[in-house]
């Protein structure tokens, strides 16, 4: 039986608590009254989201609460959820004012009067559309969520949700058509035109841009009809549903632009006429043109691509010269390079010749040529001159890893960092791009620590050697098998004797080589938070050295990283040994150099390690965390339940990709939270820090066999 509706008197106290009306004086009475009129499941849904948004920002939650009772009647719950998440995301990214303006957009949708629309959510469709647009030829475009519908020639920006049509499927189709049109803008030259200059001469440049967009929409729609007839049929159906038409005055212009040879120049030529026509009713799949964004992306791209192409061509020419030098002593003149674009079956391709001889360009050269062609409509001759020795600063041409410390020496920026999401327990959603993570190297310390450790634990090391050698499952011959590569002569003689005696002859007469490989990759994640100072840090380092000794014997692939952080802006992962590093003196010195740093923010570290582990080819992947306490960060939300829940989520994500997480901790209170994070059997608590070096190898043996 359905639960009874909540009354206003029952709702108001809830809102009082969540929205802290005692201090904020938000008028929750009208909200409670509106909510009391809803069905019980609708009430539960809206209240749940008010509470979740309130965990991010109370004012935001109040604005959401004011609008939600009206919205729930018009939009499907998934769409409302998407709006709520977008409110929180925008708040994370741009603060309260930007988030409140998103709240106002919701009013627009509510006013549009659509009833029970099933929206296409960006998060649901971005993956598919990303692959869709990559499949279409041309420059690789990214799909991003943002505050409009446009492309800057490198990314396509879409809104959080598309709700123009009643069914989810049609809303997806509409977004797909939009993506195709924006792709066509990059592919068929719209963005090549200097739009700002073209519109500047008109009394209202904004209107000129709008009319130009209309002209290009007509031209590109015709291009799509030729290239992608199936999609064009779909577009026409959607236009039919939404009543999009071509006004009579625009007919002759459309005719001209429909011609197969129509170029962006034709649209520019028609702009004067179009400017004086009445406004074009924007078609449903049309986006906007943002010349500023295009110009910015283009300015960043041009020099870099020119340099890259010339460097690549120089490499190509070098190989060519080397091949030629083998044939005959050729004069060392730079070869004449020519690249002729050609459209083959709808795809862009290039015929490249070196001194008149055709060469097959590598994929990266082809991609650069395509990108240059899309910017210019041709390959400018100065792009085809191979770069001379030292002509370019490699730092400008190729992306170099940033110095992770440089960020703290000037203005804060996130260049070169990796961004990771974080699970917000209150919101029950991820905070996107929340943690700014940088990998750093541990400064090696060449002291006697490793030697001392091995001396101190000499007996244990010997014991470990024996134990781990037994683990190593090497190739061995298995005798008396039913199948195998060789005859087991002993077994055969025995069987023949049996046969003579009248007994049954065994069929297990073969020797087989049993080849077993330990196919394990393991990552150790070491807590380098400030609380490990002293005993714990030393025990950790000792444990790592003993581990390495044992693992070298086993041949398992392993990596060691340390982690620490101060707030989400400074999440640091310390490289001690990568999967590719050998266990050499430098690695030993880095282990010796492990020093306590800041706080225990764990989620980002687990997520990054998950990513690294998944890049290693292995049958079994294990992620072992060595920690001394609960997740915690300075002056931030990352304390208590929030940190525990985020860590738990990061571990679930790891497990979902097939990684086996395990935790070794020194925190005696860990029983309060570890079972919740790792599950009942995936952790171990050591009471005495001195046990750590002794126990760690034992635990490793247990979890990998």
């Amino acid at each position: 039986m359905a639960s009874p509706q909540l009354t206003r008197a029952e709702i108001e106290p809830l809102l009082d608590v969540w929205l802290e009306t005692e201090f904020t004086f938000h008028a929750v009475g009208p909200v409670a009254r509106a909510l009391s009129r809803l069905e019980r499941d609708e009430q539960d849904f809206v209240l749940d989201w008010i509470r979740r948004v309130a965990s991010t920002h109370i004012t935001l939650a109040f604005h959401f609460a004011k609008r939600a009772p009206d919205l729930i009647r018009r939009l499907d719950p998934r769409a409302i959820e998407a709006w709520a998440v977008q409110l929180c995301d925008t708040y994370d990214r741009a603060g309260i004012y930007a988030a409140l303006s998103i709240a106002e957009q919701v009013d627009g949708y509510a006013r549009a009067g659509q009833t029970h629309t099933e929206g296409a959510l960006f998060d649901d469709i971005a993956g598919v559309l990303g692959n869709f647009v990559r499949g279409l030829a041309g420059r690789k475009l990214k799909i991003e969520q943002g505050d409009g519908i446009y492309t800057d020639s490198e990314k396509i920006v879409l809104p959080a949700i598309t709700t123009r049509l009643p069914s989810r499927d049609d809303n997806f189709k509409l977004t797909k058509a939009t993506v195709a049109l924006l792709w066509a803008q990059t592919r068929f030259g719209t963005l090549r035109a200097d739009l700002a200059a073209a519109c500047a001469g008109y009394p209202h440049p904004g209107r000129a841009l709008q009319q130009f967009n209309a002209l290009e929409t007509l031209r590109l729609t015709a291009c799509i009809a030729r290239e992608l007839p199936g999609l064009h049929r779909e577009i026409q159906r959607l236009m039919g549903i939404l009543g999009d038409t071509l006004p009579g005055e625009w007919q002759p212009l459309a005719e001209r632009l429909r011609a197969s040879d129509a170029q962006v120049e034709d649209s520019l030529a028609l702009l004067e006429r179009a400017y004086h026509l009445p406004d074009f009713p924007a078609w449903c799949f049309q986006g906007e043109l943002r010349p500023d964004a295009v110009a910015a992306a283009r300015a960043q791209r041009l020099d870099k691509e020119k340099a890259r192409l010339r460097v690549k061509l120089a490499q190509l020419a070098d190989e060519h010269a080397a091949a030629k030098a083998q044939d005959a002593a050729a004069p060392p003149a730079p070869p004449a390079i020519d690249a002729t674009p050609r459209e083959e079956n709808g795809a862009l391709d290039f015929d490249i010749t070196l001194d008149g001889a055709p060469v097959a360009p590598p994929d990266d050269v082809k991609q650069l040529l395509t990108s240059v062609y899309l910017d210019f409509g041709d390959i400018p001759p100065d792009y085809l001159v191979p770069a001379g020795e030292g002509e370019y600063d490699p730092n400008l041409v190729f992306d170099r890893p940033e110095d992770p410390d440089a960020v703290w020496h000037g203005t804060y920026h996130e260049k070169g960092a990796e961004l990771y999401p974080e699970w917000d327990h209150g919101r029950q959603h991820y905070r996107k791009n929340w943690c700014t993570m940088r990998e750093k190297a541990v400064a090696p310390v060449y002291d006697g620590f490793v030697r001392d450790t091995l001396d101190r634990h000499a007996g244990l090391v010997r014991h470990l050697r024996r134990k781990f050698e037994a683990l190593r499952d090497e190739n061995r011959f298995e005798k008396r098998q039913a199948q195998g590569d060789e005859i087991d002569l002993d077994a055969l003689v025995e069987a023949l004797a049996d046969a003579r005696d009248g007994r049954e002859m065994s069929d297990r007469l073969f020797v087989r080589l049993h080849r077993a490989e330990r196919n394990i990759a393991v990552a150790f994640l070491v807590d380098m938070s400030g609380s490990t100072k002293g005993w714990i840090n030393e025990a950790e380092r000792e444990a790592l050295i003993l581990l390495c000794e044992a693992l070298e014997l086993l041949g398992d692939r392993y990596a060691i990283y340390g982690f620490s952080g101060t707030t989400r802006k400074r999440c640091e992962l310390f490289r001690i040994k990568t999967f590719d590093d050998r266990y050499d003196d430098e690695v030993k010195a880095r282990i010796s150099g492990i020093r306590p740093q800041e706080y225990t923010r764990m989620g980002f570290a687990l997520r990054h390690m998950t990513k690294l582990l998944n890049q290693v080819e292995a049958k079994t992947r294990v992620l072992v965390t060595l920690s001394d306490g609960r997740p915690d960060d300075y002056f931030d939300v990352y304390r208590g339940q929030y940190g525990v829940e985020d860590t738990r989520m990061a571990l679930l994500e790891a497990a979902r990709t097939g990684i086996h997480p395990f935790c070794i901790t020194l925190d005696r209170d860990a029983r309060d939270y570890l079972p919740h994070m790792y599950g009942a059997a995936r952790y171990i608590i050591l009471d005495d820090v001195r046990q750590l070096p002794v126990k760690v190898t034992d635990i490793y043996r247990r979890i990998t066999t």
Partner: protein
Amino acid sequence: MNARTLDPAQHLIEREPYYEPIGDEIQLFEAAYRQQIPVLLKGPTGCGKTRFMEHMAWRLKRPLITVSCHDDLTASDLVGRYLVKGGETVWVDGPLTRAVRAGGICYLDEIVEARKDTMVVIHPLADDRRTLPMEKLGQLVEAPPEFCLAISYNPGYQSVLKDLKQSTRQRFVALEFDYPAAELERRIVVNESGIDAGMAEKLVRFAQMTRNLKGSGLEEGASTRLLVHAGKLISSGVDPVVACRSAVAQAVTDDADMLTAIQELSSSLF
């Protein structure tokens, strides 16, 4: 009805296998064959390497023995082994030995998949010694001039761990294969599946779209072979979008998002 059983060492390919040359690979292969140099075919899956081998076997009028390599393939699987029959041990030749004895062409498909210790048994056959040592028999089989060794591998999805050893690859003349150019691929699809040129052109377009996705979630784009499959379905009356889904999309990926994206590409095209 009974299936015909053929002994590959005796069997010659009677009908000319259809093959459209991409470049000068036929002349190169023939020259290598005459000079008794083994051949390595490189290229993505389904681009026509195996068909090329069949065609060459037909041209050279030699029997063709193909071995598909896998990670359990042992040296004995190739060379041969003793079996016990009625209390006696009997030696049985493996496919490589049979090909050497018959003066045929031995084609080791996807050689990288074989174990590293297996690969070395072909080394003496692949250099100027042209012999196959049969340690267990205490024999050395010398290859006749007609014998030819060919191997193939796909550099595209072979990982670093499984790359071909230098000591192996440097014994071979390498022929590089790639998907044929659009025009040629269209002709192949028309010829092999019987659809009209317009439809074949769209199929080739579609293949290019999937090849654009290589590296961003797709290991390999649609091969010519898959296009021929799709073409055959279409020519027997299947709707092109459905044919592309079953013959191409489902064959290249299991990922739901990727499947949908490829599906959207084909429905946009047809």
